[in-house]
């Protein structure tokens, strides 16, 4: 069976390579800071086939804290960023949707913390971040990069989850991240669904993308 599974991965990998050859996955967000640039490079890499074999997580708690690290980053990004902008700097309706996204990330953070505590673990804390954007357009570009990266992170980590209930929870979060990513691509003028398949990324790849945002 493993060889056949590999076939599935290869089939998808081939499909994706076709897509990647036509466009960058994150579009042309020229205002992206270094983190976004790294994202574009990493997401173009043919890392898919070898991804699942990588056992980068020690247990489910490790996966949950990995997810929490990203959710902290996302929530802080929207919370602090939106506090600096009024609704009228965005197109009609966009601000309200950004508020919804902020609230979703907040809910993800809370749920992950509760679950980690319940499992006897220690939730990672929010860090200090520098997202490097200069204006509302830059904010939206970074938002899109974060959401697309989030989808890849969950997709890359899911296979490491051992508990069914935690997998279900991760699945319910990643779909919402994908919805965010679609919308943010759209309002950045990019394709909301640039490929037929998402691109799972390994922990190392994700940390290379998100790391530059974390300053302390």
């Amino acid at each position, binding site marked *: 069976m493993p060889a056949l599974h590999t076939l599935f991965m290869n089939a998808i990998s081939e499909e994706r390579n076709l897509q990647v050859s036509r466009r960058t996955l994150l579009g042309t967000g020229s205002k992206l800071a270094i983190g976004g640039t790294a994202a574009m490079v990493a997401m173009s890499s043919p890392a898919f086939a070898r*991804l699942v074999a990588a056992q980068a997580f020690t247990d489910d708690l490790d996966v949950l804290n990995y997810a929490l690290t990203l959710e902290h980053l996302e929530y802080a990004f929207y919370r602090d960023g939106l506090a600096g902008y009024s609704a009228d700097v965005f197109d009609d309706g966009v601000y309200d949707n950004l508020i*919804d996204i902020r609230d979703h990330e907040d809910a993800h953070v809370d749920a992950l913390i509760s679950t980690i505590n319940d499992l006897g673990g220690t939730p990672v804390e929010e860090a200090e971040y520098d997202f490097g954007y200069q204006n509302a357009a830059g904010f939206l570009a970074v938002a899109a990069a974060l959401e697309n990266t989030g989808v890849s992170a969950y997709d890359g980590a899911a296979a490491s989850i051992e508990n069914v*209930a935690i997998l279900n929870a991760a*699945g319910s979060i990643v*779909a919402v991240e994908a919805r965010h990513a*679609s919308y943010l691509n759209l309002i950045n003028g990019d394709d909301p669904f640039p490929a037929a398949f998402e691109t799972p990324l390994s922990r190392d790849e994700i940390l290379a993308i998100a790391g530059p945002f974390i300053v302390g």
Partner: protein
Amino acid sequence: MSQLKAARYHESLTSALTQAQAHRSSRRAALRTSLVATGGAAIVLTGPSVFGFRSAMAQDFAGPVDVLNYALTLEHLEATFYREFNDEFSAMDIESAGFGSNVRGRLESIEAHEAEHVDVLVTVIDSLGGTPVTEAMYNFGVTDVDSYIATAQVLENLGTGAYTGAAQFLIDEDDLLTAALTIHGVEARHASYLNVLNGDSPFPEAFETALTPAEVLAAAGPLIVSEMPDTGTGAGTDAPGLGTYAALGALGLGAAAVVARTRESRTREEAVAVRA
């Protein structure tokens, strides 16, 4: 189609979604309270829910092939849907209905994605020694561009919920799980976009609602009017298959998810994506 049939259909098609949505508030409450209140690792390991989720029912599927055929059943339906109505409605038809000039291209992109999903699932099921379910005959009840876009929205949200609910059955198959999730995310992207196009929130809740096979079956079944003459019975298990869907279709429920949409909402994409 009669008004009554249309109404019945719409009720049927959306019931699984709305029923799940009715759980939204309790789900949100569960997020903050149930894990703590019921406490400890034991509930996570053996209990009915995390984040308000129902537990896995392993007996829903006999094995990975059945899960993949379940997914393929939905992908066939979606692929056929877009193929049929992208052919029926021209770019001009879509613009004339009040949608932005970029909508047509998006619908073609979604059509291509669904076709790719079908191709990959068929290939893998074959490789696993299973029998891929084949395309059935469908009655989507689409009568105009508005009902096309409205039905697309329902199908994509349904598909997202279906994958969200079914991923757990692949927990022991790491590669298949990862692959399924890479489809799942794209269905969610489609759903988000189609919600926008229909004037709804692209992301109505913080956590996606997982749908059970039974819920998905109840919603999608009425669209499937028969199996194709050469259709097999899938992997020969009691998992939801075309036979079951066809039986539901035989209940005579028609198909027309006609949701009244204002011109304002139809042009939403232009409003939110002026640079697209």
